[in-house]
């Protein structure tokens, strides 16, 4: 069972830091006692989180931009964010009464 669903609005807490590391020449995600090296796709997603957008809206936006099926993109977005949600590194706001119904398996 996924912790995230299409109707969730997700963002990084203020204390989780996504930044470019000039020494390793790649983005790093820094959290309490954690250093993660997100792939470029995850970085793109993390940079667009928040601003009141549901994950479904974010996926639709990416689908338009990359000319890909929105359903597949949504599954990828949720899968990539799942690890962070499991580690309590995301703030998740459930939106709408249908949040549970829309949850992906």
């Amino acid at each position, binding site marked *: 069972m996924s912790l995230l669903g299409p109707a969730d609005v997700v963002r990084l807490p203020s204390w989780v830091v996504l930044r470019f590391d000039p020494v390793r020449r790649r983005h790093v995600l820094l*959290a*309490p006692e954690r*250093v993660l090296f997100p792939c470029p796709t995850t970085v793109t997603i993390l940079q667009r989180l928040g601003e009141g957008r549901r994950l479904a809206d974010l996926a639709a936006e990416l689908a338009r931009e990359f000319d890909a099926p929105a359903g597949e993109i949504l599954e990828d977005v949720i899968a990539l964010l799942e690890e962070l949600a499991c580690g309590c590194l995301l703030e998740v706001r459930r939106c709408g009464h249908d949040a549970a119904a829309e949850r992906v398996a």
Partner: protein
Amino acid sequence: MTQPPNGSPESIEPPMGLLAELTHRCPLQCPYCSNPLELVRRERELETADWSRVFAEAAELGVLQLHLSGGEPALRPDLETLVARAAAVGLYTNLITSAVGLDADRLARLRDAGLHHVQISFQDVTPEGVELIGRAPGALSKKIALARAAVELGLPWTLNAVLHRHNLDRVERFLELALELGAHRIELANVQYYGWGFVNRAALMPTRAQLDRFRAVLERAVRELRGRLAIDYVIPDYYARYPKPCMSGWGRSVMVVAPDGTVMPCHAAWVIPGLTFPRVQEQPLRAIWYESAAFNAFRGTGWMREPCRSCPRREEDFGGCRCQAAMLLGDAAATDPACALSPHHEAMVQLAERESTAPPPPFTYRRMGARTTLRQRELAAAGA
């Protein structure tokens, strides 16, 4: 990125973490403290300017996470300045504290200076249990107050539970307390037998039955609290089948700076005879990381003998812990006896079983000037 050659066949990655032991002074006297038996006195501690330079050099070298530890780092009156300097050079800054001597107002100042995370040690879940270990009356209420202050300030905090035979059976209560107090994360760390913990091993070692129960509770908690509480854990490796990948490999990811500026690949590395550790006053951090004999001594796999050398796990656990091999076998290049492939493994397990089932001896509490080096040598000689 170009990296200086050092004669090692493995390419050396930049360090990810720096553990800064700002002071060895501490209001607690925990008998499992990982600090050395010869504690550094105040007059030998690095000054604010030294630490600031170390942080800047660390960031330039590639360090991402800074762990401000001790002793009790809050005893440094310049802690706010140090946090600000670390933040200014882009380090993600964790404070590891007992909460004794650190109140909500100062935590707010530290947050404003750029602190990202605070880790609060809980020696136990009852006032008596905390006092038995730390010997500081009233400490539990101070820890709870600081945890509440962290939540109030929007700072994530970790409940750091150090577990042993006297409190391991209360692991559920540690988890409940973390949830009640709004912790972001809990660290269920069984005592590692270094420093004062090595001296007090017989007084701290849990039984195998205690550990089996702990594993069952842990497994359930990890499953049920997924997404609610981040859980990290450390198992006592005397009962392990494979050794821990100590510090993720010698000189591979972490460097430790002691209060007097001595730089080591691990906070226990002082037990290894024959190594000379450089100091930040003498050499830049970059040279220490890439070129010093101490950091290259057990880097990679080239130093290994059998059974490590041909082991398929050699780049997973790096032969285990060099300090443990030195302490228990008198040979830092031997396979860690925590590994089932070590010829000394069975003796280590028997030692743990024997000590854990005998009545616990009284603690030797951690104190400045305690002359226990001889006792440690005796224990090492009587070890596995």
